[in-house]
């Protein structure tokens, strides 16, 4: 990075987040202390505690499910246009409190403020806005003239996009007339609880949305609860499989959005500068904590060296540091546990013979940090080519022909997303047709929109979120 033009710190103020010392659970329209453990949620950039959260107990789960059940018929019985108005209110309220939510998200999650401000929060508001408009148009959605909700939805979401994942779950469920019991991730409860505050201020009838912070035990209690009719889970494939097994005998409806090991495929005729941007965004956006991250670069062998050199040059301009600094590109890893996993896998890459490279990167003393890392000389039969790392680590492989690129891209149990970089339109469509992935990005990457269905093939899960298709998971068959 240039010494001539240093950027002075441009920090967002943490006080905008209006942190409280204690956060509770939200059941039946009111906030109260959960009867589970009181846990301190920590700022991963500094390891400082942010607030204490009184987590839910099994009894709290019972209360929440009962409240959701009681609210279920009245909510489903309301005209869709009334449900729509509540959802529009929530969307507008998120927009009004956008800055507060963005700062809170960065404090709790560790992601750069620029991302929470420019991606997470606006997209969450847009999700509510989009699904609000479906609430009174369900007969047009292609699921029959009078589709009915399922009932009570139990929803478990991950720590990588805490507010956005809450929006992806709550909005379609409510639009279709379901009620919700939602568990945010253990390390990132704050924006979900603040969303509950917003929901309460919007006068949503009590019990329609319930938010229960807690750990895996709370999640399991929701999944197993006989009063829950439908489970929606976003998280790791390993846990997704456990959930699928748990509900197998129960008759509960299930949708899963799990892990990925996406191939980002660059042809020799790609718009190279934009392809470099796309690869960088694909794996380093959100510190690589993205299920659909382009974690495998498949570059056409003829341009490998030139492309990797351009990638290195570009990575040298990435800024790693304080998530609240508006100029930060790479924030903190969400937890010590996740950092340990990333380190273990990166070390395995070296052990299995790949070449490791990172730009010069000063890591802060406190907090959980990992520098952007690129492995070249990666063989398909290595852990860093096969396993989801969920961190800022890119594995570079090569291919010679389009067919070989398809073969390598599809050669994984995962199937969430893929990227194609070429200026040739027919090749984009030919490749897209053959890639076994639920989302294909051509000449772009990591684009999300409430109108656009998102979800995976194979072990990346089933069901789609977003778009007209996103209604299906919440409608009775």
């Amino acid at each position: 990075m240039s010494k001539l033009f240093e950027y002075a710190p441009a920090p967002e103020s943490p006080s905008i987040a209006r942190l409280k010392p204690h956060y509770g659970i939200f059941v039946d329209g009111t906030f109260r202390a959960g009867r589970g453990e009181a846990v301190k949620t920590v700022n991963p950039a500094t390891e400082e505690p942010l607030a204490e959260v009184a987590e839910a107990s099994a009894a709290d789960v019972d209360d929440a499910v009962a409240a959701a059940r009681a609210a279920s018929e009245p909510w489903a019985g309301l005209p869709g246009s009334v449900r729509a108005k509540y959802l529009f209110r929530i969307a507008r309220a998120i927009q009004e409190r956008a800055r507060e939510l963005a700062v809170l998200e960065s404090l709790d999650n560790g992601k750069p403020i620029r991302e929470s401000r420019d991606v997470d929060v606006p997209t969450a508001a847009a999700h509510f806005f989009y699904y609000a408009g479906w609430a009174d148009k369900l007969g047009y959605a292609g699921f029959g003239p009078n589709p009915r909700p399922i009932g009570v939805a139990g929803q478990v979401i991950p720590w990588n996009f805490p507010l956005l994942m809450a929006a992806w779950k709550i909005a379609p469920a409510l639009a279709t007339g379901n009620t919700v019991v939602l568990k945010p991730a253990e390390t990132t409860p704050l924006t979900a609880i603040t969303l509950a505050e917003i929901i309460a201020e919007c006068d949503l009838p009590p019990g329609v949305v319930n938010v229960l912070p807690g750990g895996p035990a709370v999640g399991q209690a929701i999944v197993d609860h006989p009063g829950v009719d439908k489970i929606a889970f976003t998280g790791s494939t390993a846990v997704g499989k456990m959930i699928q097994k748990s509900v197998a005998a129960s008759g509960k409806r299930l949708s899963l959005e799990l892990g990925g090991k996406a191939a980002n495929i660059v042809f020799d005729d790609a718009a190279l500068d934009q392809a470099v941007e796309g690869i960088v965004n694909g794996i380093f956006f959100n510190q690589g904590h993205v299920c659909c991250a382009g974690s495998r670069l498949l570059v056409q062998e003829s341009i490998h060296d030139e492309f990797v050199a351009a990638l290195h040059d570009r990575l040298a301009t990435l800024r790693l540091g304080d998530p609240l600094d508006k100029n930060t590109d790479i924030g903190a890893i969400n937890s010590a546990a996740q950092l340990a996993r990333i380190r273990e896998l990166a070390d395995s890459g070296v052990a299995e013979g790949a070449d490791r490279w990172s730009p010069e990167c000063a890591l802060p003393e406190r907090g959980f940090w990992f520098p952007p890392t690129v492995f070249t000389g990666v063989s398909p039969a290595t852990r860093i080519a096969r396993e989801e790392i969920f961190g800022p680590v890119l594995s570079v492989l090569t291919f010679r022909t389009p067919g070989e690129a398809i073969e390598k891209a599809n050669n994984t149990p995962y199937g969430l997303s893929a990227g194609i970089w070429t200026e040739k339109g027919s090749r984009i469509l030919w490749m897209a047709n053959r890639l076994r992935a639920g989302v294909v990005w051509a000449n772009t990457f990591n684009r999300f929109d409430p109108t656009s269905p998102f979800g995976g093939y194979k072990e990346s899960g089933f069901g789609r979120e977003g778009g007209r298709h996103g209604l299906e998971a919440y409608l009775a068959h």
Partner: protein
Amino acid sequence: MPTKPAAAKTKPAGKKTAESDRVAVRKTYKLYIGGAFPRSESGRSYPVSSPDGRLLAHAAQASRKDLREAVVAARKAFGGWSRATAYNRGQILYRIAEMMEGRREQFAAEVAAADGAAIGPALAEVDAAIDRWVWYAGWTDKWAQIAGGSNPVAGPYFNFSLPEPAGVVGVIAPQDSALLAFVSVVAPALATGNSVVVVAAADKPLPAVSLSEAMATSDLPGGVLNLLTGSVSELAPWLASHRDVNCLDLTGVAPPERVALAEAAADNVKRVYAPSPADLAQGFTGEPGTARLAAFTETKTVWHPMGV
């Protein structure tokens, strides 16, 4: 020169007259063209009265030149409005609903005066109009998912159809309803990305003017909607024959009068939407359906080969 009744002129029946002697600031009702509120270039106005003969106000009496300017403004605004994202259009239309809600009592007073009705039914009509507007705001980013899609052609081609806005839609609003019907004919054209030139109900134009004021304060780009008040029989033929108008909505024209207008519209092959009296019999309550969204939509189909 109409004689002014002794009672305060703009207070509708049923509303208590304020005890104070405050002299009200009376509103001037103008046209809405290109985002601005001009008087008619002809300088004309006409009296608008309640059914019991009370003078409510004078409205601008639009001329064919005003209509010509309105079409120019609509065409100018069409590019930006149709190219805005559906999300952005939805946000703006929802904002218009927020502005309408803020003026709920004002609208109700104007509707009650126009219909000679009590305030209760007028409020109900206003609420229905706002809710209908919200229903249409929610369509902007969904219509393409219903009306478009990929077509599985028998060959190595990717083929998809997309709904696009037709362009400038000329509307003759229903003549017997001050607000709800007006909303019902205008909102779907806007939601699908068209720009609009609308002639309001001749005898009940005032709520439409207030709605234009709400639009002007809600980020709706100037020219996306243009409102003309005045004589429908004078203006409709000019709208029907205008070659830079792409579609014509004759909902507000009685069937016998429609024929000449539809014939004029044929000159540039306008898309003419003319619901039958049976269609209109249920009024504008209940779910609108998608016919009005489809009426002003063009479908574009694109082919592209799939090959390495």
